[in-house]
Every structure is written in C-alpha cells, then in structure tokens.
C-alpha cells in the first residue's frame, strides 16, 4: 500500500464510514427506498460525484480493484480525478477493465460487460427523487413513496405519449424496484435500464447534495415504467461502432474534424478496446499505416 499519509484509509474517518454503511444496509434492506445520510464535505465540489465517492469510500477495502467511469469512459477528467483520489487515499489497485474490477463507480453509464455477483456498482446521483419535477414538495413525495401512490408518474408518461407519440425520457428513466419503490436510476441512458433488472451485482446510489443513499440488491426486479400498449423500449443510434463494429452497444457521436465529419463509437471505452483487442474491426477504424503515420 502506498496510501497518502495523514488521511484515514479512503479519506473518510471510520465513524463517518460506519454511519454511511448503516445507511447502505438500510437501503439494501428496502430496495429502491431513499435513506437520508449525513453527507460530509468532500475535497471535490458537489456535482463531481461526492455522493458516489462517499459510498465508495464506505465500502472500499484494501483488496478491492476500483474502476471509475464517466459517461462510459475511463479517461475523462472526472473519472481520472476520482480514480487518483482513491489511489492516493486508499492505495487500492485501479483498473479500466470492467471484468477485473470489484468496485465500479459510475456517472451516466452501466458497463456493457455484464456484472457479476462479486462486483459492486456505485452510481453518482444528482437528483435522487424521481418525482421531484412533478411534485416540488418533499413532504408530499415522501407520502407518495410511503403509500406507493405513483399515479402521478404515469400521468407524466401519459402526457409524453400524447404530445410526442412516445415517452420522451431518454435519461434517468423512472423504474419500479422490487414492485414497490419508484426510483431514479441516475442519468444513465434508458438503454441501460434493462441491465439493472436482476443484476447479480449489488447496485448502490449516492446523492451527495441531496444527502440520500439507495440501493438495488443483487437479483432484484427493476421495471421501467410503461403502458401495456406503449411498452418500454430501448433505443440506440442506428449504427455500428466505427472502431469495433459493435451493433449492440450504446454509441456516442464524436465529431472527428471541422468539416462536419462524425463518427459513432462505443461510449464504453473498455468494451470497445476489449473488442478491438479480440480482433473486431469497425468500418472507420484506422489502418495500421494510419496509426504508424500518427
């Protein structure tokens, strides 16, 4: 271990970690239910995943292998700084390979590689309350959750179908957990929602600014809300990944030059690299000559 001296393991003091773990245990016991916790000041501003970082700090052990992704990528500023933070304060091994990680902290994506029972995924959550845009009163949304009164959420879906012909929510698409609690899955694309259903890995959600933790235990039913005659459907850009040729992964559109050139590539960089390493080639992949010329 080469943890930075002067800090407790993973930055937070043990008492704070115990408090967060108690909230996590309660959250696991009541799948999808938002548990308040005493969110601490972190050496990162809100909006940089302080909720997710505190959850990660509370469950991280010295033998864990940590992966941090932001919008699917391991190499963005946010992902790099969080990974470096835990590398320094906990001295844990980090990885970009989904299959090697025991703990994955994420913002806005679930990896394409199916997660396993021995893994935990921690989501950074900006707004934990799925009803917040429809009902501003905290007291009223608490009552709605308490009594499982979720008709209002369906009113929102009804309005979308009426106006647009389909549900227009493409991120943070509301789900019902364990047939009981309405939950915000954080701003992951609706494309990722089915991955949450019966996932073997433990799913933890941390909202720092809103001071809430919630969880989906392994093998728990997670249903995206819909109507019988307008069933939930995932959408992805109708292309193959330009680099690895994948036709089933979630794609980002990348501008490649200033002449309007565009490229669709896997948003999950590890998934794309793993496929390319295995010999999969997309239509836009650079040739060996082009790579040599760079």
């Amino acid at each position, binding site marked *: 271990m080469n943890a930075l001296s002067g800090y407790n393991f993973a930055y937070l003091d043990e008492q704070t970690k115990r408090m967060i773990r108690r909230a996590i245990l309660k959250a696991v016991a009541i799948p999808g239910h938002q548990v308040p916790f005493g969110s601490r000041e972190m050496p990162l501003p809100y909006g940089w995943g302080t909720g997710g970082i505190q959850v990660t700090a509370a469950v991280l052990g010295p033998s864990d292998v940590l992966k941090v992704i932001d919008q699917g990528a391991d190499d963005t500023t946010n992902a790099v700084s969080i990974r470096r933070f835990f590398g320094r304060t906990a001295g844990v091994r980090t990885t970009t390979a989904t299959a090697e990680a025991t703990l994955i902290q994420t913002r806005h994506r679930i990896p394409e590689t199916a997660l396993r029972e021995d893994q935990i995924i921690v989501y950074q959550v900006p707004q934990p309350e799925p009803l917040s845009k429809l009902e501003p009163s905290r007291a009223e949304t608490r009552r709605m959750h308490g*009594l499982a*009164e979720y*008709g209002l959420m369906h009113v929102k879906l009804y309005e979308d179908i009426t*106006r647009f012909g389909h549900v227009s929510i493409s991120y943070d698409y509301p789900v019902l957990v364990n047939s009981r609690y309405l939950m915000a899955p954080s701003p992951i694309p609706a494309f990722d929602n089915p991955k949450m259903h019966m996932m073997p890995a433990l799913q933890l959600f941390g909202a720092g600014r809103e001071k809430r933790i919630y969880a989906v235990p392994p093998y728990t039913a997670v249903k995206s809300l819909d109507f*019988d005659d307008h069933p939930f459907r995932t959408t992805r850009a109708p292309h193959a990944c330009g680099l690895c040729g994948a036709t089933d992964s979630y794609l980002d559109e990348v501008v490649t030059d200033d002449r309007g050139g565009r490229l669709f590539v896997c948003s999950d960089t590890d998934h794309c690299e793993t496929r390319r390493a295995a010999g999969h080639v997309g239509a836009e992949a650079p040739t060996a000559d082009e790579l040599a010329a760079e």
Partner: protein
Amino acid sequence: MTNETLLSARGLSLSFGAIPALVDVDADLWPGEVLAVVGESGSGKSTLLNVLSGRLRQQDGVVWYRDPEGRLHDVHAMPQPALRALHRSDWGFVHQNPRENLRMSVSAGGNVGERLMAQGSRHYGNIREAAIDWLRQVEIDADRVDDLPRTFSGGMLQRLQIARTLVTHPRLVFMDEPTGGLDVSVQARLLDLIRSLVRRLDIAVVLVTHDLSVARLLAHRIMVMQRGRVVESGLTDQVLDDPHHAYTQLLVSSVLQA
C-alpha cells in the same frame, strides 16, 4: 333507496377555540341521494363537509361509511392509506375553485385519466378513451382532450373537475359550492349538468351551498345550519316551502326578496 345509509354521522362536535363550528350534528346519507347543507358563511357547513369526508377531525362524535361490500368504517379511524385510496376511488371531492383540484400543466385527458392511473390502469389507449368519453359527458368537445386547462373558461374548468372526479364512478361525491364564482348563465348550465349526471349515475352527494336555489334544484333533502347547529332538516321542497325555524324563514324570505 335501501334502508342502509352510505354515510352516517352522530353527535359531531368541533370548536375552533371558543367558536363552536359543529354542535352535536347528526347526518345521514342514503345511496343515490343528494343532501344539501345550507347556511350562511360561518354556519359550520364547510366544516361539516370536511369532517364528513375525513379531511378534518371532529372532537366528538363519529362518521360511519359503508363500503361497496357493506362493511362499515369509522372514517376517522381508517388508516391514512385506506382513506386516501377511498378518496381516489369510491369518493370524490368537487372544490369551488377547480384549480385546487386540477393540474393546470397537464392536458385535459391527463387530468381526467389520473385517477384511473392511480388505480392501476396501464393501457394508454383505454385511459384516453375513457377521458374522451368523460369530456363528452361533461359537454366538453372531444378535440380539447390534449389541451391544457389554462385555455379553458371557468365553467369548462368546473366541468373538467367533475369529469376528473367521476371517472372512477364514485358512489359518493362531496361538493363545496360547485357553482360559486360563476356567471349566472354558466351556473344554470352547470347545475343542469350536475343534476343529470348524479341522477343517471346514481351518485350520492353531500352538497354545501349558501344558495337556496342550488339546493332546491339539486337536493332531495336539506339541512339548515346556523352557528354550528342543524336548526332544521327535511325534504327540500317541504323545508323551503314551509320553513318552521325562524332562521330558515329568514333565509327563504331573503331569497324571495332578491
């Protein structure tokens, strides 16, 4: 009419500080019956409506409600989830100001469909069809189904509130001055609509109004309240044509003079 009441209140009393709002009030409502509670402002009629519907707790007395299976419930002893579910299903509440009940940023169809969705309806097409059907029943053009309520007139808003309330076929609807604040011609049309709907659908109504002509037109029976007490009650025509209590006589004569 069966001889089993839908709603029965016995000995209701409630004071706000030193001011008695309800004094030993009894009330009975049979299925399909419209009961008007009349009186001036401060007579306790709105307090009675709120206590009967479980929105307000009395200090003494009890309100019994008989559910569709014939079981009796002490309204104020019901768990909150059950009472809230009742308010979304077998009961309805029509406010004087429809904006208190409607969602102004949700389409007319979404407003009417909300109670169905709250009850678990999960078929968009059926919900929309039911909403259009109810708009027709309250005389709103079907092609307004996707419009926002803020584009509706006052009379239309009140009719939309009624459609939103009746879509689950409640057996009991509480109405608080449903025609208050509307122009006289709009009031007359709304009264005709309410009368035909409650008769056709066999809905029981507790109607609070200060307007004796509204009571005359809609109610089978009437209760006259003054300072928290029921001073006279009976069949509407009998009470209004031959009032016995001095206060009822005063109310009737003031209408005749107007």
